[in-house]
């Protein structure tokens, strides 16, 4: 059965550079001395630590629980001792530190008792599956890191199609490819579990046509798993065919509505890596503590490693024969959408798929854009390359002019930051950087607007209250005055004065007979007091 494919507009063809890291087999990276686990490795609220400094933890043990709502727990990747829970450098474009749990490993790799126990999932309900997946800390391993259990819930049975993304369109990245090569059957089983959680029938696995070997292996795995309802589709090798929106468009001809989710058109997408992690979690009771990561670029031996989450990047670079002394730039992710690390001591996290190393004496030069950008000549190459069908030249123009209303009129927020426009720009303008700048400025402004709206409301309410109180006071005064005016006859006045004087007299009498708080005292005490009083009187008279 051949599925008719649709085109997405734009896109670019890139040199793949995938061979280097796929010739040698995948190996397990050595356990590092130190594991650094950031509490925030996913989209949503950070996890909350449930261990203390000094605790010994075992592989697979939950060390941080999921926060509220959207979140994911974090497990110890290996056995060891918690040495610190503190702010550390994490892999983030900002280079800012964030809370992490640090484990000093003991090399014994001891696991919790239930770790790795096989079980049958067929009897589990969708709800139970989701909960297991949540407890295993599984997040979207394609890069976004959205907690997966949330994308396995089929509210009102709106979702009809599950797409498994094995496209991996960025150059250099090969971890999904190697995962399909080594664990095709587990991926297919993971897909079946996901399908069971979603309670749907229609599944598609998409693979780029530059991976014929993996396509064949996946096909065999589908037969083996007796899952021929799963449709295996080969898609053309064009960047960014692996982008969720582009893949959906290619496979179904449908477009995810602007500001919407694939769910809105009955589709949900998961990465092949996520499917594998689901199998490990559900069938083997292994939470997400390791993943495949490509290490490529200026290293002696580019390869895919199975890496414990939390392993420092420097450890991987050294393991692949890279020289840490000559590093010039280390990219986490692919060359198109990855970000450059500020520090190679940062750990790899759940969403890390590739470490791309660039050294000063580079064997693998990345032809970067020059620092001296030329003016935009409006050639429109960017618009032709844009997979979202935007007009990048206009976005650039208005972002540069800081005209943030106009830039939104040109649909800035539909930009997926794939970098195609930037890649083809003959003026070598850092276009994506301009869009990020515009987006973050707009977000900032919106935040400020919300705050200022709140304070304005408060101020308005304050004014309103003052006004109301003033009115009420006036009202009271008026009534009083009215009351006074009513009782203005002479007799009444006299009576009022009399009454007032009476009140005063009464008050004075009361003061005279005011009881002293000495009634409860003993005879002796009273005597003493009287003596004191007498002495004081005498003294006063002497003066």
């Amino acid at each position, binding site marked *: 059965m051949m599925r008719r494919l649709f085109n997405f507009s734009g896109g670019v063809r890139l040199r793949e550079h995938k061979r280097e890291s796929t010739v040698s087999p995948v190996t397990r990276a050595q356990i590092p001395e130190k594991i650094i686990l950031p509490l925030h490795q996913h989209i949503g609220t950070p996890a909350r630590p449930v261990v203390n400094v000094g605790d010994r933890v075992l592989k697979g043990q939950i060390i941080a629980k999921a926060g509220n709502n959207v979140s994911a727990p974090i497990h110890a990747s290996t056995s060891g001792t918690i040495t610190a829970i503190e702010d550390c450098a994490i892999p983030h474009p900002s280079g800012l530190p964030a809370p992490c749990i640090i484990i000093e490993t003991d090399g014994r790799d001891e696991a919790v008792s239930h770790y790795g126990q096989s079980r049958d999932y067929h009897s589990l309900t969708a709800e139970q599956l989701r909960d297991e997946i949540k407890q295993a800390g599984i997040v979207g391993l394609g890069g976004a890191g959205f907690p997966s259990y949330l994308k396995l819930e089929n509210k009102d049975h709106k979702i009809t199609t599950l797409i498994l993304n094995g496209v991996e369109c960025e150059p250099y990245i090969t971890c999904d490819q190697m995962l399909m090569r080594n664990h095709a059957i587990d991926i297919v089983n993971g897909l079946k579990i996901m399908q069971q959680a979603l309670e749907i029938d229609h599944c598609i696995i998409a693979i780029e046509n530059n991976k014929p070997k993996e396509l064949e292996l996946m096909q065999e795995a589908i037969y083996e798993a007796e899952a021929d309802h799963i449709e295996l589709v080969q898609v053309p090798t064009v960047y960014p065919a692996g982008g969720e929106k582009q893949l959906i468009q290619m496979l179904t001809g449908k477009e995810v509505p602007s500001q919407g989710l694939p769910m809105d058109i009955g589709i949900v997408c998961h990465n092949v890596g996520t499917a594998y992690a689901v199998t490990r979690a559900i069938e083997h009771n292994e939470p997400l503590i390791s993943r495949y990561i490509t290490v490529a670029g200026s290293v002696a031996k580019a390869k895919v490693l199975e890496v414990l989450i939390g392993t420092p990047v420097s450890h991987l670079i050294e393991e692949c024969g890279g020289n840490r002394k000559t590093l010039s730039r280390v990219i986490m992710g692919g060359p198109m959408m990855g970000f450059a690390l500020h520090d190679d001591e940062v750990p790899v996290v759940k969403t890390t798929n590739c470490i791309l190393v660039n050294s000063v004496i580079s064997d693998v030069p990345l032809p970067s854009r020059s620092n001296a950008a030329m003016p*935009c000549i409006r050639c429109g190459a960017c*618009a032709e390359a844009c997979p979202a069908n935007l007009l990048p030249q206009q976005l650039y123009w208005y972002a540069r002019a800081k005209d943030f209303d106009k830039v939104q009129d040109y649909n800035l927020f539909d930009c997926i930051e794939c970098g195609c426009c930037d890649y083809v720009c*003959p003026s070598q303008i850092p276009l994506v950087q301009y869009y990020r700048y515009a987006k973050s400025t707009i977000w900032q402004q919106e935040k400020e607007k919300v705050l200022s709206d709140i304070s304005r409301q408060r101020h308005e309410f304050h004014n309103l209250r003052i006004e109301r109180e003033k009115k009420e006071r006036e009202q009271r005064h008026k009534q009083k005055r009215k009351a006074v005016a009513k009782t203005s006859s002479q007799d009444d006045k006299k009576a009022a004065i009399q009454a007032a004087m009476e009140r005063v007299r009464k008050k004075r009498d009361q003061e005279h007979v005011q009881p002293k708080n000495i009634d409860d005292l003993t005879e002796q005490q009273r005597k003493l007091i009287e003596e004191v009083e007498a002495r004081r009187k005498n003294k006063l008279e002497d003066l």
Partner: protein
Amino acid sequence: MKLNTPTSPHIHADISIRKMMSRVLIALVPAVITYTWFFGWGLLINMGIGIATALVCEFLMLKARKRPVHQFITDGSVLVTAALLAFCIPPLAPWWLMVIGVSFSVIVAKHLYGGLGYNPFNPAMVGYVMLLISFPKDMTVWLPPFILSELNFSFLDTLSAIFMGAFPLGFTLDALTAVTFLDLIKTQLNIDVTVAETKNTHAIFGDFGGIGWEWIGNWIFLGGVWLIYKKVISWHIPVAVLGSMFTIALIFYLKDPDHYASPMFHVFSGAAMLGAFFIATDPVSAATTTMGRVIYGIGIGILTYVIRVWGGYPDGIAFAVLLMNLAAPTIDYYTQPRVYGHKRNEP
């Protein structure tokens, strides 16, 4: 240790403005050779004058505008301006014509109008129109093909003609030149001579356009196709320009072949080919959306025809391009593509 942290994407296609401009110049080479074959050394000399003038003007303007001189002067954009303008100037035109034209293009039409990327009009065409209006006589002394080679007019003779207005004994400029076929048809039509009669009685006509000119047109066409292949230009503008010109010419030709030249004649005459592939496609001043490019190209094709047939000038490409340059921003505004995930256009 300090790592570099540039922003993504971390790779870039092997493309730059310099590369684009060099490709435009390379695409012109076959046409230049053909031109020289038919009409002598004049074009090359004019190009030399133009390029020298352009570089000097560019240097001075960049200095005056405090722009990084090396980065901008090596982008090659002034070379393209000078080369295109040289194509539009008669081969034996006096040297100062080229100097004035290029200076005006670079100083006024390029830098004073905003500099690279900001100039609203095609600088070469602004320079050309300025020359055409200011020096109509010098701008219309075209040569018939092969006349110089037949008369053994050497490179040195050409040099002295251009720089000193001095011709070898026995020659005058007037004796050498001839009216162009576009001009000829127009003037003949005014005295009620049909297109066919004009063509039959004058030897300067080839199969479609003028002898020599149609060959230059062929090479420009091939150069243009190469530019499309190399993705320096997109096919939309040339196809729209030539297509619309052909269509409108065909309509009138079918209606009255005596008074209207054939569509092939229009497409292969004057600066139509050069205009469609090399001038209208100037990215800075053209429309940039796909739909916008088509509309912009159609506008140029139709306006050129209108100016040629009913206007006061024999060729109209330059005026048509400038008029449509002015419309480009508005065209772009109204032809925004539908963005992914959006229902329809909301400009």
